[in-house]
C-alpha cells in the first residue's frame, strides 16, 4: 500500500493535532483551577509570556528552604514568581513583588496533583508543565528555568 503526498500530509497534521489536543487536555482542568486560584487569591491572571511559578506550600520546611535559597539566584528574572503559604521568612535577595504570600492557604488545597513543592510552567495563559520539586531533583529542574 502506498500513500500520496496529500495523504501523508493529512496523517502528519492529524498526528500533530492529536498531540496538541492531548497536551491541552492534560492541563486544561488544572489551568482552570490555577487561573481561578490566581484571580481569587491575588486578583492576577496567568501571563501570556512564559512564566515559572515556584509553588511553596506550608509543608516540609526543609524543602521550602532549599527552594527559597535557589530563588535568590533568579532575583533578576522577571518571569519567575514564587507563591507561598509557608509562614516563614521571605528570601532575603528575592524581590517581594514576585514573592506572593497566600495567607489563607488556598494554595495547599489547590488540586494541581502536587503533594508538596513544585514548579508550574505557563505560557499563553495555559499551564504547559507541572513538575514536583524535591531537594533531590531541584538542581536538575532548575536548569530549564531561564
Amino acid at each position: 500500500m502506498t500513500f500520496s503526498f496529500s495523504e501523508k500530509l493529512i496523517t502528519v497534521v492529524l498526528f500533530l493535532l492529536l498531540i496538541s489536543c492531548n497536551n491541552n487536555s492534560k492541563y486544561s482542568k488544572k489551568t482552570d483551577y490555577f487561573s481561578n486560584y490566581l484571580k481569587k487569591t491575588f486578583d492576577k491572571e496567568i501571563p501570556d509570556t512564559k512564566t515559572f511559578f515556584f509553588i511553596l506550600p506550608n509543608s516540609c520546611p526543609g524543602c521550602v528552604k532549599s527552594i527559597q535559597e535557589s530563588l535568590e539566584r533568579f532575583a533578576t528574572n522577571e518571569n519567575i514568581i514564587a507563591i507561598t503559604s509557608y509562614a516563614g521568612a521571605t528570601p532575603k535577595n528575592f524581590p517581594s513583588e514576585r514573592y506572593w504570600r497566600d495567607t489563607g492557604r488556598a494554595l495547599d488545597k489547590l488540586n494541581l496533583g502536587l503533594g508538596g513543592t513544585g514548579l508550574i510552567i505557563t505560557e499563553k495563559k495555559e499551564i504547559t508543565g507541572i513538575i514536583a520539586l524535591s531537594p533531590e531533583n531541584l538542581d536538575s529542574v532548575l536548569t530549564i528555568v531561564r
Partner: protein
Amino acid sequence: MSELFSCSNTNKGVAEQYSSFLIDSFKKEIPFENYSVRYTTVFFDKKNKTDYIYMLNTDRMLIHGYNLNKQQFDFTLNIPLKFDEQISYVVLDKDSLYFISNPEDRKICCVNSKGEITQSWQITDSTKAYGKEYSISAFYSWPLMLDEKFIYTSYYPLYSLADTTNHKKYFTQPKIVVISKNNGSIVNEIIHFPEKYIANSYREYNLSCTMNSNNEIIVSFRGEDSVLLYNTKDKTYKYKLMMSSFFTMKNVYKEDTTMDHYASLTKYSVENSSYFSIQYDKFRKKYYRVCLHKYKYDNDDGTVNTSGERPWSIVVADSAFNIEKEIVFPRLKYNYGNILITSKGVLVSKSNAYNKNYKQNELNYDIFIF
C-alpha cells in the same frame, strides 16, 4: 506478640460531643513581628504553680514564654542553635530545655533560662548503623523523653523512604534509641514496628509516643488499635487496647499515577483513618489518643482536602487504659496537632489554618477537662 494483646477494653461507648467538656477559653494577640509559631510546648512551674506555654520562633530562634495564670508574655529567650529542617525541645524546668536542632548534627543540647548551653551530648555509636544510615530526631507527637539516667528519642533515616526498596530496612530497624546522659552513647535500641508493616505497605512511617509518671513509654502506631507499653526499668513490653470507634483498618497503599508521589500519599492518608498522637496527662492520670477520621480527598471545585481539614476525635483512657470516652471534634475548628496538657486542663488550639477566622499572630485555645 499477639498473646500480649489485651482485649478487655473495647471502645463500645457512644462518641461524645466536645462542647460538654469545655471549661474555659483564651485568646491573646502575639505581639512579636514576623512571628511564625512552629513549635509549642508547655511547662508547669511547681514552685509557683504556674503553667507556661513556650513558643519557638524558628525564624529568629527565640522562645517566648506565655504565663497562663497571668495571661501575659513573661520572657523571651535567645536560643543559641540553628534551625534546619526540624527542631524539637522539651522543658523539664526553667533551666533545663532539651533540644535536638538538626538531625545531621547528632547532638542534644540543654539550654538554661539565660539562653546558655549548659550541657550537650554528641551522640555516638560506632558499632551500629547510627551515623551512617540513621540520625536522631524528635517532634510534637514523638517528643524527646527523659528519665534520671537516659534520653529517649527516635531514629531518623538518612535514606529516602520514597524508595520502596528501603522499606524492609526501615520497618525492621528499632525506632527509639536510649542515650546515656553520662556520655551520650547509645546504650539500647527499643520499639519495633509490628510485622505487618514490613509485609504490606501502609505508608505510615511515624509513631507517636509519650512517657507516663512511672517512666513507662507508651507508643501509638498509626494503624494499630493497641498501644505498646515499654517498661524502662524491667525492659518488658505489653500491648493495651485503646481503640477509636472511627478507626477502620487501612487499605494497602497503591500509588495513584495520575499525580505526584507526595500528592498520592496525601490522598491515601486523607482517605484512611489513622491514630495521630498519644499524650499522657500527669495532672489527671489519663491518656489521650487522637484519631483522624477518614475523609474525601477530591472536591468538585478544583480543590482537595488536606489532613488538617479532617474530622477527628480523642479517645480518653484512665491510667489502667480503661477507655472512658471518645470525644468528637468538628472539622476546621481546632488544630489536632497543637494539644497541650496543663494543670488547668487540656488546651486545644483553635489555630486551624483552614478556618476562615484563622489568625497567625494569635494564641487561641479552648480548655477542656475530659
